[in-house]
């Protein structure tokens, strides 16, 4: 079975630009969560979606947005990129969002 897939794996953007990151959950998983992991730190929660509805939002500015599609895949969008947005962005899927998170390998975003 395929795990959680994220695309692209690496990305370089310029300050002020916009970026879209994509995540495909494990088949049968209806919940997707997004985390930001800055080098040397633990993942920080950004969003959780379940059945296309936002279930939770972390302490991130409105430049960050996300959505979940009918096939349960998800996109994370970041507008007006800042240098500090450089990080590994992780997507995790689970059946209900309660337990059993499986993480993808992440998208490494570098803002220059």
């Amino acid at each position: 079975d395929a795990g959680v897939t994220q695309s692209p794996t690496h990305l370089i953007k310029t300050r002020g630009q916009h970026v879209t990151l994509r995540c495909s959950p494990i088949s049968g998983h209806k919940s997707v969560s997004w985390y930001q992991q800055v080098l040397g730190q633990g993942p920080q929660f950004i969003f959780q979606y379940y059945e296309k509805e936002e279930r939770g939002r972390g302490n991130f500015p409105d430049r960050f947005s996300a959505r979940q599609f009918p096939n349960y895949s998800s996109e994370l969008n970041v507008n007006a990129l800042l240098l500090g947005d450089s990080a590994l962005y992780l997507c995790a899927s689970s059946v209900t969002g309660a337990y059993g998170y499986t993480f993808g390998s992440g998208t490494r975003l570098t803002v220059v």
Partner: protein
Amino acid sequence: GESVGLHLPTLSVQEGDNSIINCAYSNSASDYFIWYKQESGKGPQFIIDIRSNMDKRQGQRVTVLLNKTVKHLSLQIAATQPGDSAVYFCADTSGGSYIPTFGRGTSLIVHP
């Protein structure tokens, strides 16, 4: 959410030794705890979990101990192998929120 922190940023052990990674949490309402392993270039991987109504749980070569009195969690790895080298995170959830909050992480280095 409340912070979940780790005592040591780096732990170096010899192959074959037993490793103990510690974690302190501050939220007395935390009711579910998870240990993750993150290898370089990969997302966090579930190792073992424990609910707050338990003191100990064992898996294959790993044991998690929970001391609710002092809000302390530990991960014990028996007969540590070079493949165990990674960053280990504890995470917790609380109060009906099933979204894991991660600590900073401990880097485990296993010397052959």
